């Protein structure tokens, strides 16, 4: 049930809709964007951050919730773990069963490595599955890897690691072809031309999509391929600590059965962390579009093992999370809605910005509209939102366009009696993506030997802000890359005696720094259980 205030505001939105069609909204200047971000983006709120006392990034700031976990107590401390008799002994151990982990597994397996995936939920329970909008690749005649490079670099505030970004853009067309050859159904014209659109911050239409189930379509094909190849997937089993060998190389992980809590040891010649993001840590109290297991586990494991983080202080707030209805609060409304022409409109029916600015700029602009400008639409939960004027899509592309191009969005809202073909939807930024993560070289390896990282757990590819469609791309490009290189490194590795001494050493550092923590980490799952009379 929309409130009276919402209904009154919708009237104003309807009144201005015709005039807004074809409106050429000016993009902000570089200076305007800088000022907007500093004033309104959550990354600039000092209160949300704390300084690390120990480890490779000592002295740097990270989100408070992440600092607590990074400096928390290991789950293996005080446990009697028999490292001599591992339950699993493989060449390549992959932690995480999303798009990056699955891509890595397929390539490692195809390179001849004995490969295994462990995942704390199921294979496919991952942000990949939920990515709606699409995947970038410069494969059209008016586009090029060099143009893609500049778009992503500008979007990332010129902080992207050049060698990683080069790999991302140059391997992009190959990644699309790899997926297509595996049987992913991309949206195509009759003649085979890819249907591509803009995303925020792109200068060419290079967003490839599979309706608005892009990530789901990619994930279910990768999962099917992992199953076809017979790669073992140990599900409902979390990695709770990395294991090293006596020579300081990473050589496996301690695993924990999520249901029985039994601990296992997995020995491996190389390990790939593909554990994804951190949305479920709810930085600064934001809702999230992320899946249930997005708790930054891989960052904790890698950091304790000595791998540095890069840009862990930059988080992406997706501009358009659901502000209303409450049942789907924080869920993602794909950027494709804006790519297709829906404008962002305030309580008075005014389009207040070009909807295809980069995500950080768009999110900040919405926050400004809802705070100091006082032009937000109040929601029953006490928050605010702005309209995303979805009926414009059908006016631009014809009747039926919403059902054809963004069926998941239509279905999600219809569950709650909202028909986005006829009425606009209310949105507000939601915690969406971890821009930073563990630092890697172009071969996917961290500073710690034989520890590789792929996917959202990596920092540096996207600089300080990621463009839409570059994440599905990075999980494929860097997932495959990590799989190939981890398989290769495994061939050249002999594992020495296993040890967890680095965990003890890290704890000693914490003790020496006077850090006392009641936080056990990694977190594994968020805690949403209401507790009464316990």
């Amino acid at each position, binding site marked *: 049930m929309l409130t009276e205030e919402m209904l009154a505001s919708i009237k104003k939105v309807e009144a201005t809709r015709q005039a807004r069609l074809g409106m050429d909204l000016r993009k902000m200047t570089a200076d305007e964007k800088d000022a907007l971000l500093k004033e309104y983006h959550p990354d600039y709120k000092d209160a949300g951050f704390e300084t690390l006392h120990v480890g490779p990034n000592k002295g740097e700031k990270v989100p408070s919730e992440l600092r607590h976990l990074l400096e928390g107590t290991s789950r293996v401390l005080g446990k009697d773990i028999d490292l001599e008799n591992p339950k699993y002994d493989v060449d390549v151990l992959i932690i995480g069963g999303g798009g990056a982990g699955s891509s890595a597994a397929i390539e490692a397996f195809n390179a001849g490595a004995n490969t295994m995936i462990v995942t704390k*939920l199921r294979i*496919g329970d991952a942000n990949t599955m939920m990515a709606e909008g699409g995947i970038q690749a410069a494969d059209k005649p008016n586009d090029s890897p060099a143009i893609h490079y500049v778009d992503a670099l500008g979007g990332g505030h010129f902080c992207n690691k050049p060698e990683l970004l080069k790999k991302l853009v140059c391997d992009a067309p190959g990644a699309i072809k790899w997926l297509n050859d595996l049987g992913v159904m991309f949206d*195509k014209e009759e003649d085979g031309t890819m249907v591509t659109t803009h995303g925020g911050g792109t200068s060419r239409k290079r967003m490839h999509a599979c309706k608005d189930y892009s990530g789901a379509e990619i994930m279910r094909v990768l999962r099917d391929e992992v199953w076809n190849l*017979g790669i073992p997937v140990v599900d409902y089993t979390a990695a709770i600590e990395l294991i090293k060998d006596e020579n300081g190389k990473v050589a496996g992980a301690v695993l924990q059965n999520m249901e029985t809590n039994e601990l296992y040891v997995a020995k491996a010649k190389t390990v790939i962390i593909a554990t994804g993001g951190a949305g479920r840590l709810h930085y600064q109290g934001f809702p999230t579009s992320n899946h249930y297991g997005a708790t930054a586990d891989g960052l904790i494991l890698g950091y304790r093992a000595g791998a540095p983080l890069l840009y862990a202080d930059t988080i992406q707030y997706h501009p358009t999370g659901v502000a209303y209805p409450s049942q789907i609060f924080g869920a993602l409304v794909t950027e494709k809605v804006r790519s297709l022409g829906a404008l962002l409109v305030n309580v008075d029916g005014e389009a207040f910005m070009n909807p295809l600015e980069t995500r950080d700029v768009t999110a900040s602009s919405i926050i400004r509209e809802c705070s100091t400008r006082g032009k937000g639409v109040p929601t029953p939960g006490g928050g605010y939102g702005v309209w995303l004027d979805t009926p414009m899509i059908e006016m631009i592309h014809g009747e039926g366009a919403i059902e054809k191009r963004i069926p998941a969005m239509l279905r999600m809202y219809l569950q709650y009696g909202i028909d986005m073909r006829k009425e606009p939807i209310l949105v507000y930024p939601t915690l969406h993506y971890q821009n930073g993560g563990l630092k890697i070289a172009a071969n996917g390896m961290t500073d710690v030997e034989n520890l590789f990282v792929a996917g959202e757990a990596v920092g540096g590819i996207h600089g300080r802000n990621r463009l839409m469609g570059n994440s599905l791309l990075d999980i494929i490009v860097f997932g495959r890359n990590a799989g190939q290189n981890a398989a290769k490194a495994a061939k050249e590795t002999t594992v020495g005696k296993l040890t967890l001494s680095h965990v003890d050493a890290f704890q000693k550092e914490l003790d020496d720094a006077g850090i006392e923590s009641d936080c056990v980490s990694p977190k594994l799952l968020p805690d949403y259980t*209401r507790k009464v009379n316990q």
Partner: protein
Amino acid sequence: MEKTVNIYIMGKQYEVPASLTIMTAMEYAGYKYVRGCGCRNGFCGACGTIYRIKGEFELKTGLACQTQVQEGMYISSVPFFPTKKATYDIREIKPTEQIMMELYPEIYSCIGCNACTKVCPQSLPVMQYIAYAQRGEYKKCADTSFDCVACGLCSTRCPAGITHAQVAVLARRLTGKYIAPETEHLKQRVAEIENGEWDAPVAEVMAKSIDELKDLYNNRDIEK
């Protein structure tokens, strides 16, 4: 005071706020999910749920994360159901009628009860896409099944033991790989990159100073 409803989780009664979904109501009641919870946004199929409203005979289904609670709802989650997954080499098989007969012969035992369609939380015409698969019409099967989240509820109700979601994945992969038109501009660009034709232009951009790059970015032309 917020309006509440009575729900029955595996038969046990709890009073919960009426605005919650089945998933958040379970958490409100005191449960902590390990199984039966994945993306919490309607895409992963982890939270397939069967329910019946007290006094009504009809069994209903939904994804727990997408379905609002109602008064008198008897809830049973189905986090796992034993299904069949045939394995194959996608490079070896072809989109022939025979391949479905070889890999998923049980689809020809469909008795046409349409229970699969009735339980689909995505409102897909499941029996129809199985019929397309039977006839080797893989593109139609692929398009019709495209929004499947593989929750597996259809399989729980199927008297023929069909694993509908897996049949659909096979049809879609055959369509994506063999039936959909090939993309010439993609093949061409991949070949250009492999031949090193884009090495120099990328290297040229990478050699620029940050100020030059900023200038390039702020003044780039944007496709309409």
